[in-house]
């Protein structure tokens, strides 16, 4: 069982580490998106969602006339821009069938800000990676999550003295300390790690387990019953072909506000806007609800007449809605979000310590620690680049956001390229340098980049830290200070790694002179 735990954890461990860390920061993805669009002013209060919805509906009528569907996510206390997407008819096969953009809630125009994916990049990378077809990425993420689930269950079985060990921590004892750290991190967050892994699989379960659906439903109309249980998107029927302007979207949103509260509207979706057969759905937002199950009001687009109110789904669908919401954590207020962030961070550390432990355990058994076998070196180098290197790459992404000129052709893409280029360079560095030095150098590099980021922000934007503090801008001040906290964390890790390196060098030396190497050890 412990072998299963080790290999289930190791084989996709690097992928899991990246998924955990980018997922962890995604709990603040909306804040990161705000930080990465510094030109867009902070929302000191949430604008009336009805007014914003009407503004966007008008604007989308201009930029996407004749679309079969558009959908907008209204601003709330964490979003100072409005995200919208609309279907297009692709001219060439293979072209994306939709357009998307961020809009200024005050004007309804596209945001006059630098082109960036913002926090969306980490969020999407977290479950579909990049540079590969989305479906492949999601399958890889699913496989990794499944390995994680097996690692968690087998870890619990392996680890019988779970509560005794939780209170045991032996500092500075090398392998023992790594094991203790790994155990404490795992046990403390165990319910969370289990929940987050299982619910992660649930978010994409229709992709991973499509068989029941395929057997149960033979026609698109039947399949429609299922999607109605899962989302507030209404499916486009056939348009009538008769042009009719959309009735007041603001009035529709007002009716929903009366029902759910002024700031509780999430999405407005229209199908065949401008056609006599148009339909509009106004969906309730995620805040304050521990479920992602759809709640929406559906209106006749041409007249604004309320057709249906949907506020409940079946038991299994509600279970899925709750599990989904638990994974995303968007129902939560600021304190809960921080708790999610911290436990999730511990989950990242659990994966990280597990990966490092693989090498720590084996290093002691190496016949010649100066020249380990290939597999050992591979794991060692991949650990460095995927743990310390990822910190550098993620920080580099934020640096690129501030340093790349704008306007600049495909700027958002280049921010992402910068992330991967830097990540690749850290791998190269890990390969050419001795392992211990590579760890220390990369941890210091991450620490320095994080420490300097608030200064870079102060020089390149109108919103330096002192300004944010005076203004009470929690997003900008929070991110600046978080960078410093993380810089400190990386510095501590760098110092400890360097010190431990010095100790183990002096311990290893006499061992090296031992001439007797058994044949089994030599075989490695």
């Amino acid at each position, binding site marked *: 069982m412990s072998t*299963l735990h080790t290999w289930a954890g190791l084989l996709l461990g690097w992928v899991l580490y990246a998924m955990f860390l980018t997922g962890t920061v995604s709990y603040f993805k909306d804040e990161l998106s705000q930080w990465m669009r510094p030109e867009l002013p902070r929302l000191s209060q949430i604008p009336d969602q009805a007014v914003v919805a009407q503004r966007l509906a008008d604007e989308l009528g201009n930029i996407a006339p004749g679309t079969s569907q558009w959908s907008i996510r209204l601003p709330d206390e964490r979003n100072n821009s409005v995200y919208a997407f609309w279907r297009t008819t692709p001219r060439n096969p293979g072209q994306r069938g939709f357009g998307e953009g961020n809009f200024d809630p005050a004007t309804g125009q596209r945001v006059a800000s630098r082109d960036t994916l913002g926090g969306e990049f980490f969020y999407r990378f977290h479950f579909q990676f990049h540079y590969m077809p989305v479906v492949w990425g999601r399958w890889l993420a699913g496989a990794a999550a499944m390995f994680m689930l097996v690692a968690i269950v087998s870890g619990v079985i392996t680890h019988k003295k779970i509560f005794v060990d939780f209170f045991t921590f032996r500092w500075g004892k090398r392998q023992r300390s790594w094991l203790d750290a790994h155990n404490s991190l795992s046990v403390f967050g165990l319910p969370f790690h289990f929940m987050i892994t299982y619910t992660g699989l649930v978010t994409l379960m229709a992709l991973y387990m499509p068989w*029941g659906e395929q057997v149960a439903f033979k026609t698109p109309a039947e399949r429609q019953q299922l999607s109605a249980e899962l989302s507030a998107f209404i499916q486009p029927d056939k348009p009538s072909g008769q042009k009719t302007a959309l009735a007041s979207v603001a009035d529709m949103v007002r009716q929903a506000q009366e029902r759910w509260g002024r700031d509780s509207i999430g999405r407005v979706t229209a199908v065949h806007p401008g056609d006599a057969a148009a339909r509009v759905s106004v969906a309730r937002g995620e805040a304050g609800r521990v479920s992602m199950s759809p709640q929406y009001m559906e209106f006749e687009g041409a007249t604004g007449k309320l057709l249906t109110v949907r506020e409940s789904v079946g038991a299994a669908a509600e279970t899925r809605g709750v599990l989904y919401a638990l994974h995303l954590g968007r129902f939560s207020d600021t304190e809960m979000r921080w708790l999610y962030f911290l436990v999730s961070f511990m989950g990242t550390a659990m994966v990280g310590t597990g990966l490092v432990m693989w090498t720590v355990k084996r290093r002691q058994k190496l016949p010649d620690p100066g020249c380990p076998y290939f597999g050992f070196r591979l794991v060692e180098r991949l650990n460095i680049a995927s743990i310390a290197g990822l910190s550098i790459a993620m920080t580099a992404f934020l640096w690129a956001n501030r340093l790349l000129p704008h306007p600049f052709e495909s700027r958002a893409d280049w921010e992402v390229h910068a992330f991967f280029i830097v990540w690749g360079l850290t791998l190269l560095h890990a390969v050419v340098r001795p392992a211990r030095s590579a760890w220390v150098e990369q941890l210091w590099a991450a620490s320095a980049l994080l420490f300097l980021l608030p200064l870079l922000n102060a020089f390149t934007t109108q919103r330096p830290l002192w300004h944010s503090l005076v203004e009470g801008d929690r997003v900008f001040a929070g991110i600046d200070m978080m960078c410093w906290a993380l810089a400190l964390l990386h510095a501590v890790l760098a110092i400890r790694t360097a010190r431990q390196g010095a100790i183990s060098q002096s311990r290893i030396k006499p061992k090296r002179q031992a001439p007797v190497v058994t044949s089994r050890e030599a075989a490695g």
Partner: protein
Amino acid sequence: MSFMIHRVRSTGPLISRIVAALFGGYALAALFSVAVLALPLSKPQAVLTGMLASFAIYAGAVIWVFAVRSALRAWAGLLIVAAPLLPLAWSVS
């Protein structure tokens, strides 16, 4: 040649278990997700129930495959669980 046989003898059961865990486990979970349709639930709810539970079945199967004493038992266990599910899945498809 005897070296090859030795090699197959020593790694064969392990590979067999890995295959049982990866593919046998998935097949069992998929089979379960279809068999659930035989329950007296509305179709969308049954489909979702099958999907939701399938990952627990998969994880359980993987644990079983590596927990038992031999690869043969691992496969036998999977087949014993699959046996009652097959007619159920057959009845709904």
